[in-house]
């Protein structure tokens, strides 16, 4: 009975999605959805990662004076990439990659979290995408979990001898899926109220599946091709970015 209910709610949610625009289901949590206490909690949880990222930036930019310009431009690159609409045939709409997996393998996960915080602030202010009070939750999902999942997948697969394409594919895929899973969890924790936590979590996860499963694969493929392209054409750039650690 519960499974039936979840399936029906999934179809109803999907119907609601399809009559609205695609951007509604991009991965950022909109302004006003999270209660104040949850908004503060996620902001507090994101702060240590941002503080570490800022410390990382200060220390590395003493040794590599061009790093700030690098990070700013990688941030802009991520922002541009995350603005590229990609068709998702199963949903009949478009969505966009999150880009933090790629950023994390280029500049490291902590700096990627900093870059994500800037991109999310810009998107909240000028694209009505995300929000100011939900910035903490969105930074945690996309900047922290997405970056670390992508970076971890990349390091692990490279360590196991995978090709640059395969490793970057895994990074893009896992960063995207980890971000969507965290966003679903954040929404469920805040919204389930006196209803069932698990059935709402399953419903939200299922509602994301038609867009995020193909999108994650697409993001993985695009990350793989993009990283493979840079690796083949300009390997010295990657060496300059992370001092030869990622190559």
């Amino acid at each position, binding site marked *: 009975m519960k499974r039936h209910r979840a399936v029906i709610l999934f179809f109803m949610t999907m119907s609601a999605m399809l009559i609205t625009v695609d951007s509604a289901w991009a991965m950022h949590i909109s302004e006003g959805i999270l209660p104040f206490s949850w908004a503060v909690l996620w902001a507090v949880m994101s702060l240590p990662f941002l503080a570490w990222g800022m410390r990382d930036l200060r220390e590395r930019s003493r040794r590599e004076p061009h790093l700030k310009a690098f990070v*700013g*431009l990688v*941030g802009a690159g991520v922002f541009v990439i995350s603005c590229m609409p990609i068709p998702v045939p199963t949903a009949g709409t478009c969505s966009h990659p999150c880009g933090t997996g790629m950023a994390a393998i280029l500049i490291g996960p902590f700096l990627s979290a900093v870059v994500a915080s800037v991109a999310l602030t810009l998107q909240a202010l000028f694209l009505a995408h995300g929000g100011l009070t939900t910035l903490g939750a969105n930074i945690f999902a996309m900047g922290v979990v997405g970056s670390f999942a992508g970076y971890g997948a990349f390091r692990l697969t490279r360590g196991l001898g995978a090709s640059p394409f395969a490793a970057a594919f895994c990074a893009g895929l896992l960063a995207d899926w980890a971000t969507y899973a965290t966003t679903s969890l954040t929404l469920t924790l805040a919204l389930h109220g006196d209803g069932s936590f698990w059935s709402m979590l399953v419903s939200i996860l299922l509602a994301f599946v038609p867009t995020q499963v193909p999108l994650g694969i697409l993001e993985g493929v695009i990350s793989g091709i993009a990283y493979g392209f840079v690796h083949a054409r300009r390997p010295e750039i990657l060496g300059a970015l992370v001092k030869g650690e990622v190559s």
Partner: protein
Amino acid sequence: MFDLFSDIFARSDNALTRVDTRVKLIIALSAIVAVMFSSRGVLPLGICVLCIWVMLALGLPLRIVILRLAGPLGIAVVLVVLQGFFTKGSPVFQLTVLGTDIAATREGLWKGTLLASRVLGSMSVVMLLGAVTPAYKVFHALRWWGVPESWVEIALLVYRYTFVLLDQAADVAEAQRVRLGYSSLRRSLDSVGILAGTVITRSLEQAMRTHEAMVLRGYDGGICFGPLPGIAVQDRRCLVVALPALFAVYALIEWWPM
């Protein structure tokens, strides 16, 4: 994308763009907090209507307002559906789908409508803030709130180069399109990947050149922002009028007997 993202409207001269950014941020955040704590949909929806009206009165094109509102509206619809069918309570109507009865509850629909109104109310406040304040002013004002200067520096760099890279990405995509780079799914994937790779490569080349240019102009690893000026008297007056007015409206709506 340029129209949607650009803060060109925030650079025009009007009564709201002239107000100190710190004051606007305080008022906007207070309005968002009031919306988040409101237990009735009247205040959030009222603020939403007011913000849309102000944006249109300031000359923001209707198309941009609708495009920016489309996302929050979609979220509002989904919230009403999810809450309506997930919250326990007294059933209002029942649907039979795939042989299973599911009921929307009065409490769920009420909660969903309240959440949806909060989303619309607070998003419209942020939209109005973005429509009357250029990004660089917001970032500078954030220093007043204790945000580290190196974060502000990165934010300004990201903001500056976003437009450059959007331009570059559009050029590369156009070149790929005329070479039939998007004629099949396989070619589209390759093209998008190469586009992303090209954007990254160009970003880094541009970073090298930018750094050299900045060093030639005296850059030594950090932008010297200098102290923030004090808030002007007329802007303080704005704050003194707006905050009590907001609180009074909030209190009136919250505690008015239904």
